[in-house]
């Protein structure tokens, strides 16, 4: 069995899976078709619902991926062939030539500046030009140029141009580069090729392609982006004017079988349209009128409904409508013609139309599926199983991200970790078999030595030397106090210079090093490794950024740039002088997990970990396993839940590695990642390395305005109660008329979020009832139908079966009365504009899913936050959906947010994957630059404990002295800045270090 994995597609899902796998003991080949990883996420401006800058949060993951010792990045590559069986696949990967030697390229951009051939920039969706030699985007990984063979003049007519080769200071251009075939042996394959935005050219009514000011949402992302074609100034294509009236058209290429052939919902477009409207309003110099034309507003995720409400407050207009056409007006303006809800034709004039295009499978991905021999579903996405949502039809081949169904980033990231877990489970015997670990010599103790500082000044070809007088800077450096060696290098990061630098450190007996070159963000770890190779602690190092922040930004003022470079070197020398060797902190791992909650999520996590050989204690407060799934009848696909549930329960029950504790709760806990100690209600004390919380949620009991006679009239039931009736084979076929009320307790001021599952659940149930008795009249009273993704099929089926949908709104709630013992439901019909009356024999309430009130107490035990609605709050909504800011604690299932079974399962798998990152190791690394309390100066005021986002600082009320738990500290320094007594320092970033840099900067020369 192989210990390596092939991942196809460098989307955020592929990158996350690669990191999870590589960090837990598997070697990863990451195959990416283009010249750099990052996928669609790298093209986004901001992400909902936090408005995080997409590049900012993505970039660190990409850099980590690019530098990972156990990730082999194969860009410009495609899968060619696959043979073998699960555990032992043989694959061929074809890598196209880059024509730029990535080991030499310093990404200075001289080549692109000189390249005479302008080409449409695909990254910016052809809205501007790049050169035939190009960097995919500024933060791409690997940060290396590539030549586009289609457009390069030399490659098409050798001898004709070659400008890039002439100017390249690193001699990196290689026109003779050829394609190569990599024959790899891997244990498993993961598909993460992402999606393609729907191309609306086929939809003539939108005017896309004909009318310049009709753009797709992806194009609009680039228009908003500071790194886009108009550097974030938001200009419309026809005349570069800033639009003041913008319209968003929803469901372009989604929920539209007739015109676009895509009947599914793309799940993310409602939210991104709202986000774009909000961001555009923020961008606009004047008041921007933003209108969104939609059928149903689908804001079904965590924090989404609140975002929607905020957008309304900020003046975004929402028009429930059907758009008929977009037509041109004078001055390149556009007219949106639409039918409003009453069917009246309306016209709005706007400056720009954004088409909220859906997600599609790409042709390439279909070919890939064919090559891998995995089945597609009716929407051409990869077919998966609701009880194992990352498995394909072929064993050993897994899938994650939007290629199996349109989904948002967090769901893709969850699936990435879930897929990593399934692969880890399968290959767990080969863990750490093919991975490498960096080896370094023992470190010299320099504590007692006087500072001997070496300064290496980089020319970076002519990138620095072309502006800054590097010779002058090098000579100047030699005169600085404690500097015993200084040298100028052509390329400090080239392998020979690196080797020579290590030798110099040893020969000269240097104990501090400064490199004046590019940015520490990309090169610090490389130079720090060089220090370690030379037997020095890596924290005895500083960089002076004389390229990105000097020569590149003062190109026309060499004198000032040289002066600045000297200042920067002097500051770095001053800072490194006081630097101390820091320990490479590690925490020994107790290889056992605690899973709290015995529902489907908790059981899935427990099994996933137990199957990898880790001992698991599963704690459930009730006296039986299964949680809410015990009451569920069908998944939305119509698959019976009970059978699967019973199978899972018996697996848990009989598993050797799982200790089951029913009727038990958690009392208190101490410790941190790698070594928790938890006390249970039965008095047991558990030692464990990780904690997974999967404590579930529960259905709301309707009250007040939303009670609808529930509890007093026996014909009023909740969804789960009807499921239970179906499970116990009570004859439901005799019902003549059934009415469902949606959003009972959801999306109301008291409970402002959408419960995500109820629309699909209610409609699936209605369809089942209708099939039991086709004569049954069924009416669905809804606010917005939110059958997101492929669940739209259920909605479609319901309508085709004759189930009727009537919309109500919050100002006009349905009225439910009892008249002569007969149930009566009144509702205002928006289309017919009159009140409709029903006398159903069954009224089903689609009630909200709420958090258990006890979740709050459990969160406190493990120092995890909860949100206003009582759900657990993950570390980052987008990229860390199952982690907490506190390391070693994870979450899954309904305690995070309402979600259907398949999403709970994926999340549980993901949480288990994140937990295995810890459990797979003997030691886990911890931050070295941490805070430290000087007990003599501490007065015990407790300020630091309030500022620390990781709860790393605690105050001992007996001694009145605070202390820092090093393994929890991330080194942000918030406590340091808040401490009036100067009693907390941040190692190597103490006030002295920063003051030394300030003083050096201000020193008169």
């Amino acid at each position, binding site marked *: 069995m192989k210990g390596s994995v092939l991942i196809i597609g460098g989307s955020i899902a592929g990158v996350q899976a690669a990191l999870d796998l590589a960090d837990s003991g598997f070697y990863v080949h990451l195959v990416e078709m283009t010249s750099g990883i990052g996928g669609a996420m790298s093209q986004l401006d901001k992400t909902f619902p936090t408005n995080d800058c997409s590049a900012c949060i993505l970039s660190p993951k990409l850099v980590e991926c690019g530098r990972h010792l156990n990730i082999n990045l194969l860009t410009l590559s495609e899968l060619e062939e696959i043979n073998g069986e699960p555990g032992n696949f043989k694959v061929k990967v074809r890598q196209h030539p880059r024509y730029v030697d990535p080991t030499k390229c310093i990404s200075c951009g001289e080549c692109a500046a000189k390249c005479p051939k302008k080409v449409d920039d695909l990254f910016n969706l052809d809205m501007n030009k790049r050169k035939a030699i190009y960097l995919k985007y500024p933060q791409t990984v690997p940060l290396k140029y590539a030549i586009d063979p289609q457009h390069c003049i030399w490659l098409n007519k050798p001898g004709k141009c070659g400008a890039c080769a002439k100017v390249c200071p690193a001699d990196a251009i290689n026109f003779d580069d050829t394609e190569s075939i990599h024959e790899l042996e891997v244990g498993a394959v993961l598909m993460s090729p992402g999606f393609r935005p729907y191309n609306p050219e086929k939809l003539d009514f939108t005017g896309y392609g004909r009318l310049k000011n009709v753009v797709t949402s992806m194009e609009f992302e680039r228009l908003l982006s500071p790194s886009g074609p108009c550097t974030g*100034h938001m200009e419309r294509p026809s005349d570069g004017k*800033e639009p003041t009236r913008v319209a968003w058209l929803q469901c372009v290429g989604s929920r539209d079988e007739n015109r676009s052939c895509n009947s599914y919902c793309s799940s993310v477009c409602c939210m991104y349209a709202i986000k774009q409207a909000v961001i555009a309003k923020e*961008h606009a*110099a*004047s008041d921007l009128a933003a209108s969104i034309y939609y059928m149903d507003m689908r804001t079904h995720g965590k924090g989404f409904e609140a975002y929607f409400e905020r957008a309304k407050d900020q003046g975004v207009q929402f028009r429930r409508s059907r758009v008929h056409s977009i037509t041109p007006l004078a001055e390149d303006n556009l007219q949106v013609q639409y039918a409003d809800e009453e069917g009246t034709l309306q016209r709005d004039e706007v400056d720009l139309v954004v088409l909220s295009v859906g997600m599609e499978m790409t042709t390439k991905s279909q070919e890939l599926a064919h090559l891998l021999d995995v089945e597609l579903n009716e929407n051409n996405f990869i077919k998966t199983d609701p009880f194992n949502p990352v498995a394909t039809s072929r064993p050993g081949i897994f899938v994650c991200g939007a290629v199996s169904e349109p989904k948002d980033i967090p769901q893709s990231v969850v699936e990435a970790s879930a897929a990593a877990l399934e692969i880890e489970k399968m290959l767990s015997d080969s863990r750490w078999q093919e991975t490498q670990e960096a080896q370094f010599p023992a470190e010299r103790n320099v504590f007692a030595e006087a500072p001997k500082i070496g300064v290496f000044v980089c020319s970076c070809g002519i990138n620095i030397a072309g502006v800054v007088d590097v010779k002058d800077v090098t000579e100047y450096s030699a005169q600085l106090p404690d500097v015993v060696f200084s040298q100028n290098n052509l390329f400090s990061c080239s392998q020979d210079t690196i080797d020579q630098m290590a030798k110099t450190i040893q020969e000269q007996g240097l104990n501090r090093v400064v490199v004046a070159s590019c940015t520490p963000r990309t090169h610090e770890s490389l130079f720090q490794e060089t220090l370690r190779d030379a037997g020095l602690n890596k924290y005895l190092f500083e960089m002076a950024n004389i390229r990105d922040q000097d020569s590149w930004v003062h190109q026309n003022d060499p004198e000032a740039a040289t002066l600045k470079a000297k200042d920067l070197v002097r500051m770095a020398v001053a800072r490194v002088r006081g630097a101390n060797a820091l320990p490479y902190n590690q925490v020994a791992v107790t290889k056992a997990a605690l899973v709290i909650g015995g529902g489907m999520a908790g059981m899935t996590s427990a099994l996933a970990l137990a199957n990898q050989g880790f001992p698991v204690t599963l704690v459930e407060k009730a006296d039986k396993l299964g949680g809410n799934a015990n009451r569920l009848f069908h998944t939305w696909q119509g698959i019976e839940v009970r059978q699967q549930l019973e199978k899972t329960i018996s697996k848990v029950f009989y598993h050797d590695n799982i200790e089951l504790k029913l009727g038990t709760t958690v009392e208190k806990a101490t410790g941190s990642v790698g070594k928790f100690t938890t006390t249970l209600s039965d008095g047991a004390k558990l030692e464990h390395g990780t904690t997974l919380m999967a404590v579930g949620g529960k259905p709301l009991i309707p009250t007040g305005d939303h009670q609808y006679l529930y509890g007093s009239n026996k014909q009023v039931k909740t969804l789960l109660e009807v499921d239970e009736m179906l499970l116990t084979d009570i004859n439901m076929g005799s019902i003549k008329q059934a009415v469902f009320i949606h959003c009972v307790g959801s999306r109301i001021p008291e409970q402002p979020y959408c419960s995500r599952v109820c629309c699909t659940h209610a409609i699936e149930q209605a369809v089942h009832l209708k099939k039991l008795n086709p004569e049954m009249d069924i009416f669905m009273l809804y606010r917005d139908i939110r059958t997101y993704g492929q669940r739209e099929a259920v909605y479609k089926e319901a309508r085709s079966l004759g189930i009727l949908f009537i919309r109500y709104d919050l100002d006009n709630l349905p009225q439910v009365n009892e008249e002569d013992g007969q149930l009566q439901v009144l509702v205002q019909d928006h289309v017919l504009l009159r009140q409709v009356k029903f006398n159903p024999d069954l009224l089903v309430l689609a009630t909200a899913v709420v958090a258990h009130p006890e979740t709050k107490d459990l969160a406190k035990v493990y120092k995890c936050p909860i949100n206003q609605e009582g759900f657990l709050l993950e570390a980052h909504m987008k990229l860390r959906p199952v982690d907490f800011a506190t390391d070693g604690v994870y979450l899954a299932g309904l305690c995070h947010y309402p979600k259907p079974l398949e999403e709970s399962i994926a999340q549980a798998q993901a949480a288990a994957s994140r937990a295995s990152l810890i459990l797979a190791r003997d030691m886990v690394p911890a931050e070295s630059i941490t805070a430290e309390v000087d007990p*003599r*100066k*501490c*007065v*015990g*005021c*407790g*300020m630091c404990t*309030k*500022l620390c986002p990781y709860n790393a600082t605690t*105050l001992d*009320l*007996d*001694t*009145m002295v605070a202390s820092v738990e090093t393994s929890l500290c991330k080194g942000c320094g918030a406590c340091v800045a*808040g401490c*009036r*007594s*100067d*009693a907390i320092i941040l190692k190597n970033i*103490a*006030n*002295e270090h920063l*003051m030394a840099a300030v003083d050096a900067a201000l020193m008169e020369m």
Partner: protein
Amino acid sequence: MNKIGEHIRQRAAELLESREIDAFIGFRQGSLPMTTQHYVARSAAEAQNLVWNSFCVLNPTNILPSLLKSFEPPRRPGDPLPDDLPKVGIAVTGCWSRNLAIQFQENQASRKRVIAIGLPCTGMSDRRQILAQTGEMVTEVSETAEDLYFTGGTVASLKRTEILRPNCASCVHPQPVARIMTEVIEGDCINNDAAGRFAEVEEIEAKDSDGRWDWFSSEFSACIRCYSCRNACPLCYCPTCFVDDAKPQWVGKGLNSSDTSIFHILRAYHCAGRCTDCGSCEAACPMGLRLRLLTKKLDKDVVDMFDSEAGVEPFKPLPLSTYSQADPQPFIVQPSHSKGEDS
């Protein structure tokens, strides 16, 4: 005033007699007329030395943390604090009670160990202002609810309202914070117009930058770096004050105007969101510097920006230990195109 003094003496004596408390913090007559000193009564007999008059200007909570600590037995590191430590009584007006709230929040005093008696406050008198009018020769003072009477001065009496300390004249929370008081003595309180509470600060704010610098540099040029202001402040309890610290040395030790200025700026900043405008610093300053203007400016901004007032809501997090996503940020420099210049 006399009634309140009588009440304090009586309650302090009772509490000490019954051993409910081991000490009571109040004031006794100072050695000069119109002065008082902190006084710790440790028996019912000593409680009779306690006085209450309009010259009780030094905030008594200043000595509370150290007094509480003095009752703690010597311990080895790691030994827990005993549960049944002696309690201390203290009589506090509005501003002092708010300091108590801060000290509770910052763990400098344990609520369990403090018997706090809330006092009504009609404002304290400004000795300097009085002396300016009466001359230095006053030998005795007596007071009624409205007036002060002097023996030996050039003026026989003054209206209390005319010689109020500026912090009292602008005080809008003279009532003790009821939620942390053990008991409260009822009585009349000063009733100032809230609109003018920051008038002193607004007067400086109205100047231009040069004018403000002239004010600041001349006001603080008289400072002799005696640190009486810091020592009188109930918020200053760091074991090593930044001004005394050698590693790092934030402030030079001599009489350099830059060092002196930075000392005062940083001292005021350390009181941000915590200062209750008790006026102890000014009362203690031998040079008569208007030190409060800095802390009052910060008070004003904390109210304006974070809707918070030191100690008024005793269990609310202190403003610099918390945040709101909607905190104002008009000072943030914006890139020029987002200011709408091109429209």
